[in-house]
């Protein structure tokens, strides 16, 4: 179905999120929508999917007919389905219930026939989903698969995907891309929203770039990456050159550390981390990286082995002992674990400082906040609450909250969902801090290129197995992808995925 957006404007109070956008997507094509965070991509897609309405004067034309879309239910009725970045599903419910929820019909749904439809669709796209499983036991990638076949079953002929490659594994991404190409061949219209250039370039048959609410340009393959970047940011952005690490004393030493939780066991992990070094942890989500990094932070107690921080044995000591030793942990969920929603930036900086008196010195806090906002380039004011900041700025605020002196920074998905500019900025700040304080960094990322670009050495995780430290400079994305998938491991022959 051809999709045409005509003269779409959208204001939120003073912010002008979409300025007169005209876009036309042909049936059977994969349209990429590129733009940095806050460029207006999400707003435009929410208008098309009925979540919000455009300002008067705009028009949406589907397959030649002008349509009015007032709600997501209207949207799916006319054939527009959207896959949201955080899947809008019901985690404690079963896959089959999630699948059939929202489909109209009689009082008692015919589960047997729904189940058959589900299995047929899953098979068609080679998804292995168990209809009786609970959604909270699925990975993000599998939840996307469920949502895709649900939307198809509901009759979607236009599929919008919002940042679908964030948080899924390389092999799931591959499967997703195959699925999308197949759907396009069947005549579906795919709109793929992303800030990841390589994904868009690989997949799309046409790309539109948004910047500050305006459609600044369109491109067809072959794509010119530097030109796309220039369109996205309005200027040229380059990745820094890899620099060999200047390593110093040992910061963290793990000796034969074993870890356990309900799902998996890690046996005999070893690491000798030097000051100034960056170690990346790669692996499919839930392969043990999270457990590992929490053990380095003192949040998980090892069941065997020893943990030394700057030569001191901290095995089994609580998190606060680690923190006093200069260990800082930035978890993946910024608003749940990292920051306090409802508090302003000033209040965060005051909280993070050692208290000097019983009462709060507001004026000093204000000065501190202004200072940090400037030096960390946070787009916000001292009185902005953290939840009002964009993801990139929340991450900057977290960096500004790192204590000094610092010996070890632990990061979980430090740049997930951020655009290139923010990614480059955050890494340059991190490396600065590392050099200045003589600290080391351990980070988890599902973005293989990020792992290779920014780490000196890396550890690969595969269902609880931990590799020996691997030199990042001599590893390719392909090699890393194989290791993550369980191939090319030296020791056992029973790994295949």
């Amino acid at each position, binding site marked *: 179905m051809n999709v045409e957006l005509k003269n779409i404007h959208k204001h939120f109070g003073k912010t002008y999120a979409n300025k007169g956008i005209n876009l036309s997507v042909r049936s059977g094509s994969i349209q990429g929508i590129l733009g940095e965070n806050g460029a207006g991509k999400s707003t435009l897609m929410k208008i098309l999917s009925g979540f919000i309405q455009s300002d008067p004067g705009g028009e949406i034309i589907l397959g030649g007919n002008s349509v009015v879309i007032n709600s997501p239910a209207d949207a799916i009725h006319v054939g527009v389905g959207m896959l949201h970045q955080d899947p*809008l599903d019901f985690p404690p419910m079963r896959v089959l219930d999630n699948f059939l929820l929202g489909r109209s019909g009689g009082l008692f749904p015919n589960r047997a026939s729904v189940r058959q439809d589900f299995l047929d669709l899953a098979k068609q796209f080679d998804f292995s989903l168990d209809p009786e499983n609970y959604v909270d036991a699925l990975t993000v990638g599998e939840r996307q698969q469920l949502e895709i076949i649900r939307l198809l079953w509901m009759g979607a002929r236009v599929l919008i995907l919002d940042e679908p490659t964030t948080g899924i594994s390389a092999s799931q991404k591959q499967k997703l891309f195959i699925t999308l190409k197949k759907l396009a061949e069947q005549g579906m219209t795919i709109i793929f929203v992303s800030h990841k250039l390589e994904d868009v370039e690989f997949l799309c048959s046409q790309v539109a770039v948004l910047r500050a609410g305006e459609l600044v340009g369109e491109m067809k393959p072959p794509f010119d990456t530097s030109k796309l970047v220039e369109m996205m940011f309005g200027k040229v952005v380059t990745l820094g050159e890899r620099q060999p690490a200047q390593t110093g004393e040992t910061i963290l030493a793990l000796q034969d550390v074993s870890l356990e939780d309900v799902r998996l066991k890690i046996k005999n992990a070893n690491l000798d981390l030097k000051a100034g070094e960056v170690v990346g942890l790669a692996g499919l989500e839930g392969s043990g990286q999270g457990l590992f990094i929490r053990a380095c932070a003192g949040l998980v107690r090892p069941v065997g082995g020893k943990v030394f921080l700057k030569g001191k044995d901290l095995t089994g000591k609580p998190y606060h002992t680690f923190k006093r030793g200069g260990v800082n942990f930035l978890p993946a969920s910024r608003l749940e674990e990292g920051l306090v929603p409802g508090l302003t930036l000033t209040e965060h900086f005051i909280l993070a400082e050692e208290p000097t008196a019983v009462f709060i010195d507001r004026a000093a806090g204000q000065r501190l906040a202004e200072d940090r906002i400037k030096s960390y380039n946070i787009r916000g004011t001292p009185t902005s609450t953290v939840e009002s900041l964009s993801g990139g700025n929340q991450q900057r605020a977290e960096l500004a909250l790192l204590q000094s002196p610092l010996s070890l920074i632990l990061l979980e998905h430090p740049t997930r969902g951020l655009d290139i500019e923010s990614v480059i900025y955050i890494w340059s700040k991190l490396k600065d801090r590392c050099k200045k304080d003589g600290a080391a960094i351990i980070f988890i990322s599902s973005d293989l290129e990020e792992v290779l670009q920014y780490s000196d050495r890396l550890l690969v995780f595969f269902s609880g197995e931990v590799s020996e430290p691997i030199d990042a400079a001599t590893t390719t994305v392909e090699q890393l992808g194989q290791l993550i998938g369980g191939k090319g491991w030296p020791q056992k022959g029973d790994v295949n995925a």
Partner: protein
Amino acid sequence: MNQETLLVGLAGVLAAAAPIIFAVLGETLSERAGVINLSMNGTILLTAMSGFAVAYTTDSLLLGFLAGMVIGALVALVVAFASITLKQSQVAIGFVLALTCRDLAYFLGNPFMGVSGPRLQAMPIPALSAIPIIGPLFFRQELSTYISYIVIFLAWLWIFRTRPGLMLQGIGEKPAAAYIRGANVNVMRYVYTVIGGALIGLAGPTYSLGVRAGWMGTISGLDGIGWIALSITIFGGWNPARAAFGSYLFAFLQWLGLVLQPVLTQVPSQVLQVAPFPLMILTLLLVNIGDAEWVERTLAAMPETTRKFMAKLLRAMRASPPAALGVPFERD
């Protein structure tokens, strides 16, 4: 104790659990939609009083029960309006209503204190009541007890087996996801809160026109039932079948306290009267034990098959509240 007195006692447990079941299932429906109706304790007292008063004045049991349901629904409507439309704290409004309705019941109920009025009579079901053991246990009850059986089944059927019931689960779990699937979240929340309120309002007359017939003001012994029902809602994991089990367990423990009093003379009677409460707490702990870290550790050390089995068992026992409980829904 011979078999007959035991059967009569256990049949009494089923009857005594009926009002608790109404209240717990009403609360379950409301909370499934995401609205906590904390007014329950006051609502039960107020509807017990007014149900009795209406039945006494009009000499109609039916009108008494209807009055209870209407008042329960109206109180719930206040909760719904304050929390859904005005987006105020459900806890605050619920608490205030719980206190107000209780005092209102005592104050307005004065003229009906201690008068004897109409009450439900046992209605043995022909044929079924003649079956040995099962008959006297289940089928020589009052009408309200039969209705409680039906309500348990219907509530369970509705929530877990029907299309609107699935949507109800969705609304309480993630309203935004229910919204994109076509649900009118706030309207549905109103509907379920009010229906839940009517069910809670059925609990009062079930006491004052049946289980504990009459209105005795502050010594009616009904104060506190609402809070117990609230905890049984949690114990029941927002599942009508489990909630019913919790209600029966509580009524049974209370009965046991009474029966054991003459036997265990060395135990102070107060201990036996209070025992059901800590026992309920213990059960609650047991139900949610799977979340404890040490349990996870112990499980991790077990062999694979045992571990999987135990994990499944704990998973089935675990009850997590609807994720959006108490959270107002706004489009975007």
